[in-house]
């Protein structure tokens, strides 16, 4: 689904309709938010990995909760839902039991980060032009 936000078209993996409403055509602010996302996500994800490795499920749930919120601000609403499911699983399962889910989430996070990196660069170019 591609929706024009002014003239800027967000990547099809992102919830463009939501981003349009969120940024209201302010691509300068969108650029700032995408930049902040790229700045903050690695630090938060490090905490996710550390809590997973230490099998601290309660902390893992809390850390995923934070990442979930970040994903929302850049339009990854489906990834937000996946994080919510994972967060719920953290309260009921061991680290071993959610290993597959964790690996999936890690892979999706990497893909998401890559997409946002590209989107950030596109926004930057768009705003400069």
């Amino acid at each position, binding site marked *: 689904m591609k929706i024009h936000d002014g003239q800027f078209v967000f990547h099809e993996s992102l919830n463009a309709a939501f981003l349009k409403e969120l940024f209201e055509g302010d691509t300068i602010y969108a650029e700032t*938010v995408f930049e*902040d996302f790229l700045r*903050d996500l690695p630090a938060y994800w490090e905490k996710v990995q550390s809590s997973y490795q230490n099998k601290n499920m309660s902390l893992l749930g809390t850390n995923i909760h934070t990442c979930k919120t970040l994903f929302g601000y850049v339009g990854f609403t489906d990834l937000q839902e996946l994080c*919510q499911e994972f967060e719920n699983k953290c*309260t009921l399962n061991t680290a071993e039991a959610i290993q597959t889910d964790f690996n999936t989430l890690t892979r999706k996070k990497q893909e998401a980060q890559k997409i946002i990196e590209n989107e950030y660069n596109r926004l930057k170019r768009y705003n400069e032009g």
Partner: protein
Amino acid sequence: MKTTCIIVEDIQIAADFLKKFCEKSGLIDVKGHFLNVRDALEFLDQDRPDLIFLDVEMPGANGFQLLDSLTYSPKIILTTSKTDYAFDAFQYHVDDYLKKPFTYKRFLEAVRKIQDQPPPIPAAITPQPSIDMDFLFIKADDKLIRLKKDDILYMESMRDYVKFITSGKTYITYSTLKSMEEKLAGPSFIKVHRSYIININKIDDIRGNTIYVQGNAIPVGKGHKEELAARLNIL
């Protein structure tokens, strides 16, 4: 006149959005942004903004614990990415509940809603003391734990935390003994020392200025002796 507010939010992007929305609206004057409850409470000791945008899940204490500690009744808009807190929000009489990320339109609805309300009645924001309920919820170990009042032996103050001692387990939660005193108002609980509230029904014996509850020795403060004596059913 603008509504004054503070933002209590540990995620910078979320706080920045709120600041931007406040500025854009021209209706809200942001007095400060705090990354945790402790810093916010320090500010609230000195200042009383009209409104608090309050995240629920933050490192350390959570948003509801801030509400427990308030000494006045500001408007409260909860901002969270979970909808599971709706019941708690209702119990705490919060004014609105914004699910993150939220749009400017939704933000404006919430702000207009609170600005249309009459001024708050000067009363504590804390929920009505649950005298008629036989349990309470405490936040410990990153979850809300349902604790039957009958199971509590006593509570001990630990600065900004309260330790709950039951027969089988001990819980530590971010709160104050004063707040617990209000919540547990009723015939079963009494403050016997500045650091202790006990469940009268659990007292085994009293020797001098010490109360014994299942092997635990609890001191009785000088200022509490008289009230304790009056509350005990001494033959």
